[in-house]
């Protein structure tokens, strides 16, 4: 089996949002949506800090679909539009999606975005990878782990573009892979571990 995963090294992330923008471009993500958000952890302003001067700390937290092994969204989807594929990715079949948004209620990470209107793009045409299907009004979408790229040998674009090399992509079922070794590092953890959703995106630091 294959269990594709991404490790994000929070000690290396500089909060530059390059991954978020690359993702938006690669996947033709419309205005008002992102599949990958870079949060300034525990702050209510972007690039804020936690603590009291001079003891300040700032952590950037990139959040995307966590491709959970025990995915709440996949269980909740009434039509099976959301599914776990043979490479361990959580994917959406847009033709099956009835737009009930049960998955959005079920996702603990708020990773999913919905096409509330006809998608608006600036500039006024589709951009990014031509292999990525265009989503219609009334369906849900989210990070696909760059399905079109990772079907082959390419890595997801967020991993490819990260200037700080904070992201590691690979197969958790291959014990010799870099990501399997990263998963054993101290400080490797999941978001909302207590929810038991067993994400395949994990964080170091």
């Amino acid at each position, binding site marked *: 089996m294959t269990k594709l995963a991404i490790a994000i090294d929070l000690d290396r992330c500089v909060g530059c949002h390059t991954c978020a923008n690359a993702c938006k471009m690669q996947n033709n993500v419309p205005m*008002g949506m992102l599949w990958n958000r870079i949060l300034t952890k525990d702050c209510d302003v972007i690039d804020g800090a936690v603590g009291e001067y001079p003891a300040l700390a700032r952590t950037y937290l990139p959040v995307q679909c966590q491709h959970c092994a025990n995915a709440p969204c996949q269980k*909740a989807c009434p039509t099976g539009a959301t599914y776990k594929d043979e490479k361990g990715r959580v994917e959406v079949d847009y033709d099956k999606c*009835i737009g009930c948004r049960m998955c959005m209620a079920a996702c603990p990470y*708020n990773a999913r975005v*919905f096409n509330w209107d006809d998608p608006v793009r600036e500039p006024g045409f589709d951009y990014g990878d031509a292999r990525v299907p265009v989503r219609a009004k009334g369906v849900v979408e989210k990070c696909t782990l760059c399905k079109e790229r990772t079907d082959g040998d390419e890595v997801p674009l967020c991993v490819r573009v990260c200037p700080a090399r904070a992201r590691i992509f690979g197969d958790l079922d291959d014990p010799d892979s870099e990501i399997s070794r990263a998963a054993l590092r101290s400080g490797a953890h999941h978001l*909302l571990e207590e929810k038991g959703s067993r994400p395949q995106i994990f964080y170091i630091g």
Partner: protein
Amino acid sequence: MSLTRPYKITIAVLAVLVALGMGAYIFQLVGGLGVTGMSNGTSWGLYIAGFMFLEGLGAGALAIASGVTVFRASAYRAAVLPAVIISVVCMLLAGALVLIDLGGVVRIANMMLSFNPASPLFWDVCLVSCFLVVGVVFLYLLTSKRGTAASQMATARIALPIAVLVPSVTAWLFGLQIAREGWYSSIMAPLFVASALDSGLALLVLALIWLNRNRVRAGSERCLSGLAGLLALFVAVDGYMVGCEVLTMAYPGTEGAAALLAEMTSGSMAPFFWIEVIVGVFAPCLILAFAKNRRRPGIVALASAGVLAGVFCKRIWLLLGSFVYPNVAGAPGLISGSSSTQGVEGVHGWTVVSSYAPTLPEVLIVAGVFALGVLAFLVLAQRFLVDDVSSEEGLTDKGMLAVEREDVVASHEPIEASLDCRFGTVRAGEQERSQ
């Protein structure tokens, strides 16, 4: 058939509301769900709250109707047919609200073609469909000459468990979601059943009082006061379960629960929470605890209206409260995605805590759905209940309506004198009988 003027005006107003709602729905179909106030943060809104409410009303009414039949509570038989009419109408509209909420209603066939049996929503659709079939069959057996007491009993025996399962499965849409602090609780299903029973009964009591006033269907005073007593019990159970849930949330003092509780008791959900507690639970319980009050239709109607308002408010805070705080907190937070923020540049499309207010099309659609419900009830009442009273022989055949008919006519004589009869046909029926 001659109809009185206030009745015609009521019908006209309701028809206008329905037409406005349909217009708003077409507007939504063209523009997408972006015309609503929903966003990526609060991805369900008034439609789903309305669905929860109507589904509860329908299930509660059917539970009463089938319970009375199954347990042969003959004193309440006059309530059975109105209750079944209410249950079918409410459940149809609940289903309609779910369809209205769908972004891809054209792909609804996927629910049958490729379904996921692990999804509570799939089961909800199945059970609501079963409910409607059983409800319509029950209605047919109660109103047709072919409906024997045995067939009604058999239908009621199927209807009773379905009436309990429908609110349970609806509750599991929420209660099984580990993602949401305020939903993930094993008390959700019993709580939804309790809310269904008290709100459904409250609506039934209101309908019976209204019908009595118009001398259409007589619940007789004892029937009504008995139902009012049952209502007090149901409301108390509902309130008790809310209390259990709030205590369990508050006691461990976890961060997420504390934030949600603050939102419920003193934040944006506070009006809904306190209306539910005060108007929906304490006031009706206090009023209906006294036998003297239970005998006065006006007071019982007031308490019932309070229960309905309370349960609707509960649907609101229960649904929306859990959308406010994302589990993974941080700036800039969630990106809205909805059209209300489109055209707004930069940071204004983002929000650290999610907020929601229904838009005009959304309110019009929901108002249209409720108006359609009242309209359908009036039409069905005119068709089935009025004819019942005016036709002499139909009553005993059905075995449902003969109970205390004479008492009813007698006990409501003084009321009739002071009240305007809205159903012209009823008057005609009464006159025929007196001749």
